[in-house]
């Protein structure tokens, strides 16, 4: 193609730049106004602060127990993900290798969960969690999120493992390797990209979930970040420096992780979208 000015290309940039502003301006106002004193937010909502303050953060940090909330959210997200990847890949390996009516049925049983939100089972989950003594407990959230992750994990991992050449697993079998050994030494290293995709599909919904903490967590010690922000934001309605600081605190770790890894992130997501 020629290098001369193309009107269609300029229009494309125009549309995309406009949208980039629509996306970035709100995020910018959140971050920049969280370090301004209250009065200046209303006088000068978009510019750099003339007076820099961290009061909002200090207040939000002391009013809420954000160190605790972060720790809780991190425990829930990491343990759920490890369980999803471990349990999901074991099941997917069995589903991919075992061709029988039982395994076909189980595959469909798992996949059916892709389209049905777990929230609709909340009423009975409430009773199950109570009966197991897991309300107000991070373990309750972890088990629910692990169950919630099973459909996508079995779906993505089974199709990925089926695409692994049979010769590789057969060769290991002839050498007398146990199934667990094949899973660990042959399959796991090969399915790393698929594991990344499963991680991406699960980590954001788990980290950002409000529904289950809102219903199951009453105790302050077990609050997650989203739940903590909800409660703080209610108190801070009129103090925007504090309100925006609380929001920024919840957003910045996610934003930082996304900006660092957006390349891999989008690649994993696209791989998943193509498979589906």
């Amino acid at each position, binding site marked *: 193609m020629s290098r001369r000015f193309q009107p269609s290309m300029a229009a494309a940039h125009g549309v995309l730049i406009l949208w980039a502003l629509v*996306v970035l301006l709100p995020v910018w106002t959140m971050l920049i106004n969280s370090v301004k004193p209250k009065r200046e937010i209303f006088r000068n909502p978009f510019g750099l602060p003339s007076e820099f303050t961290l009061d909002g953060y200090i207040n939000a940090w002391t009013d809420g127990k954000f160190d605790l909330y972060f720790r809780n959210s991190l425990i829930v997200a990491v343990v759920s993900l490890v369980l999803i990847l471990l349990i999901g890949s074991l099941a997917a390996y069995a589903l991919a290798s075992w061709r029988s009516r039982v395994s076909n049925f189980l595959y469909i049983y798992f996949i059916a969960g892709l389209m*049905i939100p777990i929230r*609709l089972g909340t009423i009975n989950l409430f009773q199950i969690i109570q009966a197991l003594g897991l309300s107000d407990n991070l373990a309750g959230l972890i088990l629910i999120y692990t169950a919630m992750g099973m459909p996508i994990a079995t779906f993505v991992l089974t199709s990925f493992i089926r695409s692994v050449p049979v010769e590789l697993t057969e060769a290991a079998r002839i050498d007398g390797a146990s199934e667990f050994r094949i899973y660990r030494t042959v399959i796991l290293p090969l399915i790393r990209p698929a594991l990344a995709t499963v991680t991406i599909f699960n980590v954001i919904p788990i980290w950002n979930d409000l529904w289950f903490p809102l219903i199951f967590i009453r105790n302050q010690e077990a609050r997650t970040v989203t739940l903590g922000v909800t409660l703080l934001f209610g108190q801070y309605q009129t103090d925007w420096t504090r309100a925006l600081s609380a929001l920024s605190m919840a957003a910045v770790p996610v934003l930082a992780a996304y900006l660092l890894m957006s390349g891999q992130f989008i690649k994993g997501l696209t791989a998943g979208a193509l498979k589906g």
Partner: protein
Amino acid sequence: MSDAVLTEVGQVRERAAARWDVQRRRTWVLFLVPAVIVYTVFMAFPLFNSMRLSLYQGKGLTPETYVGFANYTELFTNPLWRDRFFNALRNTVVFFAIHMLVQNTLGLLFASLLSNVHLRGRNIYRAVIFLPATLSVLVTGFLWTLILNPRWGMLNQLLEGVGLGALARPWLGDANLALPVISLVSSWQWVGLPTMMFLAGLLTISDELLEAARVDGASAWQVFWRIKLPLLKPVIGIVSVLTFVGNFNAFDVIFAMAGARGEPGYSTDLMATFFYRTAIAGEHPVAQPNMGLGAAIATIMFLILLAGVSLWLILGRERDEKTGT
């Protein structure tokens, strides 16, 4: 070697292989056990058991008295529940329609622009478009309530700054505006998902096909309508069904921007917020959680989702049969 020996060797081998098979199958079953247990106990069983509970009533946590379809009768005959139910259903349909119209059309537009490999900075645009989807709905919802605040909000200030002060409004305080505005905020957040899916679909269309059309004199517009869009049909299907499922159990954005009661005056109440109030928080003026009635609402939501997903599967199968793939 004689034939007899050969057969014997063969039999030994077969027996060994059979033993191996049994052992392998046993390991596979073991591999499946944890996933089946977790998924059944914390997802599949509660889903179906909640439906059973819609036939029960009772005070407190566990509805124990079997009442047949009384919860459904109550839901559809008591004016309080009936009006709130149909209000929430109508609002959810509007919420879904705006997402289809705005979020998915914008997603298709952005994907078409980004599918041009000569476009500079396409990775940066793509990352920015997807960025809001990584944030918690709660954070973006709260942030937008501040931006849309009628007295101090940045949007009205911005409008006044560029001389459009007449357009400034109490965006979330007006019962006619609140639902469309919240739907737009939600579309703003999630537009990255359809963009990624459409982009993935567009990139699988072969260059030769598009080149051939151009050589034949087709304009860019014709290429889009006659070639790209028909080939994107399966992706349009999956994007629509995912939007449908997501919208029909959307809760967080309403909770953050309009409260659990869908203010102002239930004008933004969706199925999931209605379900939450009825089953968990206690619906006004009853103020007592009603698990049986909540289970009935969840069952109806389940049936609506099932109908939508089945429709998608049937349409997809018909298309596959027509094209013979």
